């Protein structure tokens, strides 16, 4: 295509040069002929003044004048021809060039459009995006470079995915292997505590320490696992039609012993006939247990903790309210961030993982809900979970799917 363009340009230039050269030559010939004619006329006029052969001299003068007129006519017609030639050459050359240029643009346009399209797909995460390499050398090179780049991106993404899988696999296996011995340690320590009356106070205290630590280990394992999942974007929920009241009662039952152990009151205040929610039971239970555990551990002995649930417009609001020491403003702002915990003295005593609230937030958001905290120092804290209530349509749907099952 470029060669064609160059040829057209050469033809155009050639025609113009030939035309101009021809014009100059014709002009030169005309001037020479005219000069010779004038010379002859001058000679004739000289002869006339000298009185020689006056008839012949006069004839020569008239002939020469006529010849110059003829020469003028000839040169003007030749100039017109040359101008026509140059003009035709110009028009033909320009038209050809324009046609070639349009063709050139068109032949670049397709590959460029393909490139734009493929870049868009690549940026959108489609690592299989490639372009067809062809056409002009320049666009072909560009297309080839693009494909190489996409290839490299895909290769690296593959490596990264593989590393992620290995990491996930490791976290899963480690957590699995740790769970069985942990079950035994925790189970037998609990067994000892069931016969507390047979233990000396010192022994009972020792077993209590074992239990506290197994609970901490379990929580750490679960939190690390959730965190690994969350990072991999694989923290998922399986929502089913769920009764909020039984969910709260279930969480409270799990925590009852811990509250009793610290002489704390746990009260439930659940509005009757709460609509159901579409929720992953285990995950919402996990969030509620996390909030209750925090209240249990951060509040002093004898504190009062309340769980209130009500229906507010299209949402179910669940509040976990305590009358504990409250949370300072600076901490409250970052409380749902990872590894954000109470002050150092407190965390030494409490021993949480600093991950619970961050995970709770992710889980509630996966449910399309929200979680927030309010606190007045020395006047307790309130954690509020909002979950969208099931609409009438989804209620009917749940009934139907239950009927089908």
């Amino acid at each position: 295509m470029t060669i064609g363009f160059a040829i057209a340009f050469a033809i155009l230039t050639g025609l113009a040069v030939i035309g101009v050269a021809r014009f100059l030559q014709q002009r030169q010939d005309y001037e020479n002929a005219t000069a010779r004619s004038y010379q002859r006329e001058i000679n004739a006029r000289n002869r006339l003044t000298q009185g020689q052969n006056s008839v012949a001299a006069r004839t020569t003068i008239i002939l020469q004048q006529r010849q110059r007129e003829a020469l003028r006519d000839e040169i003007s017609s030749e100039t017109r021809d040359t101008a026509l030639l140059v003009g035709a050459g110009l028009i033909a050359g320009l038209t050809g060039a324009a046609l070639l240029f349009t063709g050139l643009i068109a032949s670049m346009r397709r590959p460029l459009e393909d490139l734009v399209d493929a870049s868009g797909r690549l940026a959108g995460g489609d690592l299989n995006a490639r372009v067809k390499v062809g056409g002009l050398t320049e666009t072909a090179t560009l297309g080839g470079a693009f494909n190489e780049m996409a290839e490299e991106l895909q290769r690296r993404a593959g490596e990264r995915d593989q590393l992620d899988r290995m990491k996930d696999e490791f976290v899963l296996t480690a957590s699995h292997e740790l769970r069985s011995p942990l079950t035994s340690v925790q189970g037998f320590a609990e067994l000892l505590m069931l016969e507390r009356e047979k233990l000396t106070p010192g022994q009972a205290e020792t077993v209590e320490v074992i239990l506290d630590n197994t609970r901490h280990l379990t929580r750490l394992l679960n939190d690390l696992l959730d965190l690994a999942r969350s990072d991999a974007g694989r923290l998922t929920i399986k929502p089913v039609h769920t009764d909020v009241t039984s969910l709260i009662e279930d969480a409270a039952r799990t925590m009852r012993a811990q509250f009793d152990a610290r002489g704390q009151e746990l009260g439930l205040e659940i509005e009757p006939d709460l609509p159901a929610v579409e929720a992953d039971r285990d995950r919402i239970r996990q969030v509620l247990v996390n909030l209750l555990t925090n209240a249990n551990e951060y509040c002093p002995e004898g504190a009062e903790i309340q769980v209130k649930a009500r229906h507010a417009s299209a949402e179910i609001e669940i509040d976990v309210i305590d009358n504990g020491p409250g949370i300072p403003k600076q901490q409250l702002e970052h409380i749902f961030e990872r590894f954000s915990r109470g002050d150092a003295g407190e965390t030494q005593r409490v021993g949480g993982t600093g991950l619970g609230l961050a995970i709770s937030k992710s889980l509630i958001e996966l449910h399309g809900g929200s979680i927030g905290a309010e606190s007045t120092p020395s006047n307790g804290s309130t954690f509020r979970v909002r979950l969208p209530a099931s609409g009438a349509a989804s209620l009917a749907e749940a009934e139907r799917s239950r009927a089908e099952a």
Partner: protein
Amino acid sequence: MARILVADDSETILLLLRTRLEMEGHEVETAADGHEVIELVRRDPSGPELLLLDAMMPRKSGIDALRELRQEGIEIPALIVSAHADGRNEVSDPELAVNDYIAKPIDFEQLFAKIAELTS
């Protein structure tokens, strides 16, 4: 109180489960793998009122044993104990008809509540 068939490959955990369940007044039979579970259920299909099976056991897992029993038309309620982090995914197959699953380390209060629910 219920007759419960408990299977786990760890003797320690079997001892723990047996002790806690018997303290609750349940009658406990134990198996060390899925083969033993199938054998015990075949011998006396109306015996156990509940199967409490570990998901992962060598030779035959609780999940494989349960799948075989279900194919034979045995409908005894089953609770799967799983040390696997994604326990729920393991037991989500509707053919297994798993009634519930419980994670390790075992929360016994939760376990007792689920047993009461399934055997009432």
